């Protein structure tokens, strides 16, 4: 035993330099491996906070449009958020289409925001900080442009749901939807 230890000591003194390099390489790879493993673990745990499968599966709602008369709106829930469905009048459609595109903050044609000009479908969530704008009910303030008005910080939206005045940076978002038949739309 004693002899072996003395031998080790001897080896150490001659190989010290090589040894340090080897040790550094070993340390680095081991440390790197451990950090990579830790990062993957951390991500797989944090990922539990992302939407679960049952939440993602509940992603479509069907709406019957027949009860909504011209000039009226309906609010439906989709993914926990309000969706505004507006049956627009000819005047409202005209107003939306006659705007000079270059004067808009978020340039978007009304034509590209609707599938059928009579029906505007937008998420009822202000693009500023997520409040629900007014304008769905008959007595509501509709803002300076006849669409919606967000009472939180004073954003005005027009009859195409586009931002015209106030702090909101973007137009009201159009959710994915399709006409299943003439009178039924499927959101999501």
């Amino acid at each position, binding site marked *: 035993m004693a002899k072996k*230890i003395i031998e*080790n000591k001897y080896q*150490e003194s001659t190989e010290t330099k090589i040894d340090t390099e080897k*040790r550094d390489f*070993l*340390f680095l*790879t*081991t440390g790197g*491996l*451990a950090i990579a*493993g830790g990062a993957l673990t951390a991500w797989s745990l944090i990922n539990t906070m992302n939407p679960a*499968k*049952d939440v993602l*599966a*509940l992603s479509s709602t069907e709406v019957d449009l027949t*009860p909504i008369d011209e000039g009226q709106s309906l609010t439906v829930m989709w993914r926990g958020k309000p969706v505004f469905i507006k049956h627009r009048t000819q005047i409202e459609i005209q107003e939306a289409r006659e705007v000079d595109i270059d004067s808009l903050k978020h340039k978007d044609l009304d034509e590209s925001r609707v599938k059928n000009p009579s029906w505007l479908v937008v998420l009822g969530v202000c693009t500023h900080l997520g409040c629900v704008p007014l304008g769905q009910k008959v007595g509501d303030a509709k803002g300076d442009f006849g669409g919606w008005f967000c009472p939180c910080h004073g954003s005005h939206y027009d009859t195409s749901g586009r931002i015209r005045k106030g702090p909101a940076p973007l137009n009201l978002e159009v959710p994915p939807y399709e006409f299943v038949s003439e009178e039924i739309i499927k959101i999501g």
Partner: protein
Amino acid sequence: MKIGFIKYILIFFLSFHSINLYSAGKADLVEQKWPFDGFFGRFDQSSLQRGFQVYREVCAGCHGIRLVSFRDLAALGYTNDDIKSIASEYEIEDGPNDEGEMFTRFAKPSDKFVGPYRNKNEARASNNGSYPPDLSLIVKARAGGADYLYNLLNGYKEVPENFRLNDGMYYNTIYPGKQIAMPQPIYDDMVEYEDNTPASQDQIIRDVTSFLAWTAEPELDERKSIGVRVLLFLFLLTLMLYAVKRKIWRDVE
């Protein structure tokens, strides 16, 4: 002592047939080989599909699988359209609608399976006072797991002469007390498999047991495939840590 402990743990890992500490005493179960046993075991999709067919044609009359969603069937190899059409064979209650009424509609992939009874009381009333349990977790909820279920379904035997069987009960050698309220559910050729597999009693039981093992542990395939990689990684890392430890400790006497 430490070595003994390690050996003990290793024996745990190597004997996965008895998946539970509390099932060790279940000597009367004949152990089966399942494709989903062991480190590399996975579910056999075609067997799961057959088992699902058996569940629908045989078990679903009395037993629900309320924790399983239709969309989960994708794991059995069904396409979205298959799942939609399977779901639309079920009706579920929804509502209230705009008039405040509850209504029934066809199920969607996001819905869960609908059981045969509205509640436990109805289930009891229709089954002579016995409650047919929900089968979603049955394999995990019984000591012995899949082996228990297999043995139970195969456990219907002639009643011995001196055995006193109560009214409406059936003799089963595996069930505690040897009498069970469920009549023997599975016989040879009672289903016609879509893939033309010969439907012997044993085959049917095997398939439906596999299916119910899946409903209990739908994560098994993913769990084991991640697990193998995790363990390999850990073996490597631990080995390297050991080398680092040896190097650092080399000059300590």
